[in-house]
C-alpha cells in the first residue's frame, strides 16, 4: 500500500543532517507536531536532558506509534529512552519508514508504551479558598508548573504572562537548543537560551566531513564547495519547511541530496531560487532578526557576517581559490532576509566553484584556514545578548531569527554580555 508516512523528526546529537534528507523522501511526510505522527524518527545520540525531552515528545504521539532510531556513525551513541525502538543499521531511507508504519498497523509490532509516568512533576500546593495556587484565582506553581499571572507589558497593558520552554525539537531549532520564554499576547517579554547538550558531550565529530578533514589534510576544493552547497540547500529546505512551504522544502531537499551528483548549478536550482523568491519569503523576513551593534559580526564571520556587508571570507586568502575567479558575495541589511538571500546565492556560487575546481583539480592545503559553513557564535555572542535581542519580538519573528542564523548543533553562547 503506497502511503505517505507521517513522521516527526527529533534530532539528537549527530543527527541533525537527517531532517532534510527525510524531506526529500517521497514516502515520508514530515509533520510539525508529534500529535500528527505515527513514526518518531530519532537520529543521533540522546544524552541526559535530550533523552528527557525526547521521552516527553514520544509520549505525545498517538497510538499506534513506533520510534525509528538511527545511531549514525557513533558506535557508542546513547540510545533514546524508548526500549522497543526500531534500530536501523543502515542509512535511513523512505522504505524503512513505510516498513515501520506497516509493522504497527499490521500488528507485527506492538505500539510503544509511554516512556514517562503519567504523574505531575510535583505535588499540588494549594493556597486559595478553592485550592488554587498563587494570588487570587491565578498564579503560583501548581503541580510544579508556573501558571499565568497578569503583568504589565511594554505598553502598560495588563496581560497574562505565559512562561514555558520552546524546543529542543521545535521546527527550525538546532539540535540541543531550547528557549525559556515569557510571552504576553504572543510578544516575547523575556527569553533565555538553554543548551541541553553542550558540545563535547561524548559525541565524535563526523570524520568524513570534508571541512573536518581540511584542517589536517589536503582536500579537493570541489569536495569542499559541493559540501558547502549541500549544506546551504539543506538549510534552505529546513527553513522553507519551518516556514510552512512544505513543497518548496521538498524541492530544496532533493537538490541538497543530489548536489553531489550534479556539480554545476542547473536550471532546476535556478527554478528553486525563483520559487523561494516568488513565495515572498525574503520579503516576509525583511527587517527581522538583526543583531545589536554590540555583537562583533566580523568575529562571528560566515554567511551571517557577509549578509550584513562584512567582507570576511577565508577563501579570499586561500591560493586554491585564486584561479577559480572567486569573489565573495555580500548583502546589506544584516537581517533574516539578507541571510536567506546570502545562503541561496552562496549555494549556487559553491556549485559553480565546484565545477571549476573539478576541471582544474584545485586542492585546499591544510595550512590555510578553511571558510566554515556557519559563523562562530559560541565565543562571539553572549547568552544574555541573544536573549535581550529577542525581547519585543513576536513569536513568529523569534523563530525566524533562530532559523536565519543557522546556529550549529550543540551551540552554546558565552556567559555575560
Amino acid at each position, binding site marked *: 500500500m503506497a502511503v505517505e508516512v507521517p513522521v516527526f523528526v527529533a534530532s539528537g546529537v549527530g543527527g541533525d543532517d537527517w531532517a532534510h534528507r527525510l524531506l526529500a523522501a517521497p514516502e515520508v511526510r514530515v509533520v510539525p507536531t508529534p500529535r500528527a505522527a505515527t513514526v518518531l524518527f530519532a537520529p543521533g545520540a540522546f544524552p541526559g536532558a535530550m533523552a528527557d525531552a525526547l521521552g516527553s515528545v514520544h509520549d505525545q504521539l498517538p497510538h499506534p506509534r513506533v520510534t525509528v532510531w538511527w545511531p549514525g556513525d557513533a558506535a557508542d551513541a546513547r540510545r533514546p529512552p524508548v526500549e522497543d525502538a526500531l534500530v536501523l543499521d543502515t542509512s535511513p531511507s523512505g522504505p524503512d519508514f513505510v516498513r515501520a508504519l506497516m509493522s504497527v498497523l499490521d500488528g507485527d509490532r506492538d505500539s510503544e508504551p509511554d516512556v514517562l509516568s503519567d504523574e505531575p512533576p510535583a505535588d499540588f500546593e494549594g493556597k486559595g479558598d478553592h485550592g488554587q495556587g498563587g494570588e487570587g484565582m491565578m498564579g503560583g506553581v501548581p503541580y510544579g508548573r508556573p501558571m499565568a499571572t497578569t503583568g504589565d507589558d511594554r505598553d502598560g497593558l495588563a496581560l497574562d504572562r505565559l512562561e514555558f520552554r520552546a524546543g529542543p525539537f521545535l521546527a527550525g531549532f538546532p539540535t540541543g537548543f531550547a528557549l525559556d520564554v515569557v510571552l504576553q499576547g504572543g510578544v516575547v517579554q523575556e527569553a533565555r537560551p538553554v543548551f541541553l547538550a553542550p558540545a563535547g558531550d561524548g559525541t565524535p565529530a563526523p570524520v568524513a566531513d570534508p571541512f573536518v578533514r581540511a584542517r589536517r589534510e589536503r582536500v579537493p576544493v570541489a569536495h569542499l564547495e559541493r559540501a558547502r552547497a549541500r549544506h546551504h540547500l539543506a538549510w534552505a529546505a529546513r527553513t522553507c519547511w519551518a516556514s510552512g512551504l512544505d513543497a518548496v522544502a521538498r524541492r530544496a531537499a532533493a537538490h541538497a541530496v543530489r548536489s553531489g551528483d550534479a556539480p554545476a548549478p542547473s536550471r532546476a536550482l535556478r527554478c528553486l531560487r525563483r520559487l523561494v523568491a516568488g513565495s515572498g519569503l525574503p520579503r516576509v523576513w525583511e527587517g*527581522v532578526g538583526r543583531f545589536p551593534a554590540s555583537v562583533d559580526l566580523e568575529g562571528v564571520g560566515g554567511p551571517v557576517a557577509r549578509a550584513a556587508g562584512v567582507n570576511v571570507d577565508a577563501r579570499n586568502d586561500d591560493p586554491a581559490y585564486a584561479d577559480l575567479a572567486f569573489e565573495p558575495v555580500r548583502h546589506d541589511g544584516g537581517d533574516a532576509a539578507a541571510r536567506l538571500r546570502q545562503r541561496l546565492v552562496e549555494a549556487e556560487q559553491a556549485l559553480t566553484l565546484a565545477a571549476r575546481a573539478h576541471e582544474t583539480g584545485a586542492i585546499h592545503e591544510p595550512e590555510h584556514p578553511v571558510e566554515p559553513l556557519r559563523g562562530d557564535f559560541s565565543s562571539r555572542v553572549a547568552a544574555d545578548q541573544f536573549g535581550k535581542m529577542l525581547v519585543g519580538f513576536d513569536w513568529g519573528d523569534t523563530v525566524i531569527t533562530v532559523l536565519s542564523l543557522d546556529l550549529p548543533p550543540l551551540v552554546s553562547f558565552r556567559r555575560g554580555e
Partner: protein
Amino acid sequence: MTGRVHAEVWAGPLLVSVVLATGIYLVAVADIVADRVVAGRRPGVGVFTDPVRRAALLVNQQDTTTERPDAALRDLAPATYISLAALGLTVVPWSSTFSVADIEAGIVLWGAVEALVVVAAFLAGWSPNSHQPLLAAYRFVGAGLSYLLLSMFVLIAAALPAESLRVGAIVDAQHGLWNVVRQPLGLPLFAVVALGSTFWGPVGFAGGHDLADGVNAEASGPRRLVWDVGRAAMLTTFSAFGAAMFLGGWQGPWLSGPAWMVLKTVGLLAALVATRHLFARMRTERFVTLCWTVFLPLGFLDLGIAGVGTLL
C-alpha cells in the same frame, strides 16, 4: 423571482452535504497535486486515493488528550466550524431557481458566519490548555479584525449594483458583466478573507510550523481529521460564495447553471488551495499593517468604483 424553488425539505441538507463532501475530497486531491507539482514530482494517479488513505490512517489513530482540557469547548469548536461552513453554503444560489435559503439578507448572514469563524478558531486554541494552540489563537484573533473589516467593504461593493443584500439578486445583477470585471479589486481582496478564515497559506495565522501546527498542535487521530475536513469544507463554501459574488454564479453559455457554478467553484478552490504551496505565511505585524494601509484603502476604492458604477 425570489430564487427559491419549492422542493422537498430534505433537498437543502442533501445539496449542502453533497457539495461539501465533494468539495472536501477535491480540496484534498488539489492539495496533494499542488504539493507534488511544486516539489518537482509527478502527481501520479495515486492522488485520487491518497486522501482516502490519509483519512483511514487518521481514523486508525488514537484521539489523544492534553491534561485538563476544556472538553466541552474542545468538541464545540470543530462542530461550530463545520456548521458555519454548511450555514454559509445555504445562501449560495446554484441556478436561477434553486438555492437552499436565498434570504433577503444573505450578505448579513455571511458576515455573521465570518465573525463566528473567529470564535470557533479561538475556542480551538483555548480548549486544549496548551501554549502553542493558545498563542496561535491570539495571533489569529489579532489579525482577524483587519481582514474581517475588509470583507465588509468588498461584499457591500459587490451588492451595490444589485441594490440588494440577497445573493441571488447579486448574481442576477452580473448578467452580461461579472463583478470580477467591473470591480477588479473585489475578488483578490475576498481571497485574502477566504484564506484567513480557513487558516490557509499566506494568511494562515491559526496554524504554522513555528507553533507546531498552531490551534491543531494537540489534535490527533479523528479529531485532526475533523479539523482537516472542516477547513476543506470552509474552503469549499468560500469558493462557492466567491463564485456567486464575483464570477457571475450560475450564469454562462452552453452549460446548465449548476454546471457553471460547479466549474467556477472548483476553479476558485484550486487557486486558493495552491496558495499554501506557493506563498509563505506573512508575519502578523506586517499583515496587519498591510491590511490597514493598503488593503482597506483598496476596499474603499472598490466600494467607490461600485458606487460610481451604480450611479452611472
